């Protein structure tokens, strides 16, 4: 069995329909447990006080905002190299989900920044690159919607995705590149010294799993919808030709 079998829309739909109920259930369970644990059962931070509870939303959504774009990059490259329609549709399906994650990261960051930094917004390298990433998401979705020919749309959006990947990576490493601005470096690290304390890290890990599973479930479901929408277009074209 090869992963390329899933480039067959029928195979993709039958497989994902079996997996989706489990993915939805796991995503909801992880989110519920992680957010409950983080909100109700963790202590306040000695510097940030109770605002540390925003961590369980802000960090997972920011991680997913970047990784959603990287997933779109991989799907776009598969489209450009192997011309599998399902991969182009998966990239299209991921964009609104990634954009939502970016909005959550920006909104929670602004709400968190107000009491911590004394401002809702600062033109800091990480915040600015995240805003640009959000604009890339909007541009990507607008480009898909603006072009009638699906193959041309997939080609052009794939190129846009390649360009936008620079900002996806920049938003992750902006703090390291410029070493300035208000935003702190990575809170989650495999290095025990840099990583947050276990009491915050463990519920955050469950929340990250929840966000990741929700992203996967949403993208698989939305890709199925895009495949069906494409089939509707094909059937309507066939009907018109026969009339």
């Amino acid at each position, binding site marked *: 069995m090869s992963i390329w079998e899933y480039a067959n829309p029928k195979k993709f739909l039958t497989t994902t329909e079996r997996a989706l109920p489990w993915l939805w259930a796991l995503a909801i369970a992880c989110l519920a447990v992680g957010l409950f644990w983080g*909100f109700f059962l963790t202590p306040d931070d000695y510097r940030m*006080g*109770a605002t540390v509870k925003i961590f369980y939303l802000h960090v997972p959504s920011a991680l997913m905002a970047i990784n959603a774009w990287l997933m779109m990059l991989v799907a776009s490259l598969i489209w450009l190299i192997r011309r599998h329609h399902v991969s182009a549709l998966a990239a299209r399906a991921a964009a609104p989900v990634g954009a939502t994650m970016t909005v*959550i990261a920006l*909104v*929670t960051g602004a709400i968190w920044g107000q009491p911590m930094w004394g401002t809702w917004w600062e033109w800091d390298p990480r915040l600015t690159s995240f805003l640009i990433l959000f604009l890339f998401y909007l541009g990507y979705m607008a480009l898909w919607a603006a072009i009638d020919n699906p193959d041309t749309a997939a080609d052009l959006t794939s190129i846009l995705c390649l360009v936008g990947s620079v900002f996806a990576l920049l938003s992750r490493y902006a703090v390291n590149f410029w070493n300035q601005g208000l935003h702190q470096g990575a809170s989650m690290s495999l290095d025990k010294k840099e990583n947050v304390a276990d009491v915050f890290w463990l519920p955050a890990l469950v929340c990250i799993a929840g966000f990741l599973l929700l992203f996967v479930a949403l993208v698989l479901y939305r890709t199925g919808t895009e495949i*069906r929408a494409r089939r509707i277009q094909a059937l309507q074209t066939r009907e018109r030709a026969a009339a």
Partner: protein
Amino acid sequence: MIPDLGKYTDTVLWSYAASIALLVGVVVATLWRGRKVRAELRRIEARMTGKGPGNA
């Protein structure tokens, strides 16, 4: 039931409310469009195979 969030009550609760609203929003929009497209496809396929209401 809600833990004491002190002077950050509004900050924390607004963050949770906004994030959960956005997550629920994207899930609802996804399921709504999915159902709509599925129903449309079933209708067109039924019409094309001659099983639709117009062909009875």
